């Protein structure tokens, strides 16, 4: 590695990880469209998080952002001389709820692009959409649905999160393939099947890491699973109902 090789902006053939599109993969109109969409969703996420966020969840937000950034540096091997890495949107959403998770993912992707040139600035909105919002909002909805089908979140948290993680990666790859095709970078009939095939394998890694992380938390600190705003509210209600006799928890 020659010194200052980093000074060159192009990242072709470098270690730019799995789904981070560089600027010139997308046309400016497509990139701007997804900047607008992602900015609107982030704005909504700020409002919702501001309304429902309890201070007790803030450290978990910070640690999750740090973990997802770190985990995204680790490209694992999949078939055919290809690698991939965790996205983490479903993991974040299961722990933090979809809105705070959206802010975490947007922060991770922004720091990667601004500081490490990992993903372009012009296409940052598209990257936030594909790797963040699809996983946090879409993946979370899928997670809740699958958990419901499998008998509830308490029983099915881990398999449901794994399945939602896999689906979110494949959906993200479909979304990026559509953007690439709409930009004229590659014909849809070529880029869609190849993106989906590769990410169907990468998604297995997403599922395994998501499931393992949640299993670890469930085994060691299950209370962290109850910080998510809707779960915290439910737990507070249960506590209020059940706290007639013993010393009531001081939860507000």
């Amino acid at each position, binding site marked *: 590695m020659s010194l200052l090789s*980093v000074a060159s902006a192009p990242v072709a053939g470098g270690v730019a990880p799995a789904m981070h599109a560089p600027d010139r993969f997308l046309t400016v109109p497509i990139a701007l469209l997804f900047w607008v969409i992602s900015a609107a969703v982030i704005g909504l996420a700020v409002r919702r998080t501001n309304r429902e966020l309890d201070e007790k969840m803030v450290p978990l*937000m910070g640690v999750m952002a*740090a*973990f997802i950034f770190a985990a995204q540096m680790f490209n694992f091997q999949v078939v055919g001389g290809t690698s991939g890495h965790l996205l983490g949107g479903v993991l974040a959403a299961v722990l933090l709820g979809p809105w705070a998770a959206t802010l975490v993912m947007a922060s991770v992707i922004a720091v990667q692009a601004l*500081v490490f040139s990992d993903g372009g*600035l012009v296409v940052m909105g598209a990257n936030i959409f594909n790797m963040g919002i699809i996983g946090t909002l879409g993946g979370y909805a899928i997670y809740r649905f699958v958990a419901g089908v499998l008998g509830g979140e308490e029983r099915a948290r881990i398999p449901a999160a794994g399945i939602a993680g896999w689906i979110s990666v494949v959906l993200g790859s479909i979304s990026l393939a559509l953007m690439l095709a709409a930009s004229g970078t590659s014909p849809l009939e070529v880029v869609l099947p190849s993106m989906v095939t590769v990410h169907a394998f990468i998604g297995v890694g997403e599922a395994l890491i998501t499931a393992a992380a949640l299993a670890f938390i469930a085994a060691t600190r299950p*209370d962290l699973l109850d910080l998510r705003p809707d779960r915290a509210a439910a737990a507070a209600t249960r506590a209020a109902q059940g706290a007639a006799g013993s010393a009531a928890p001081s939860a507000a």
Partner: protein
Amino acid sequence: MPDVTEPATEAAPASDPRADDGDTTRRSSRVGRWWWVVGLVIVALVVVVFAPLASSDPDGLERVAEDNGFIAQAQNVVGGLLGDYAIPGIGDPTVSTVLSGLLGVAILLGVVFLLGRVLARRKA
């Protein structure tokens, strides 16, 4: 890893999900309240141990771009400060990767923690 799981399992029996507010519960173990330190140790381990082991094979998007002939377009309009997770002036690629990883971890921890604090405190 062992010193991660051990204190945590000790804390587990006491961790009635509702009781973690700590001070009033009699078995509020100190480990219980320092979970985030354990979390950051895990994050640091990921950077120090796993990031240098990352596969250098093309990732999913790069593979597709190479196979379909548009990898030459993989350019950014503006380069970031520390492109490719390398710190200028540090020759050893592993050290460079690990340091830039730790820097990124610190930035994200700070940014998201402050963002969360502001959003949690200033209720609109």
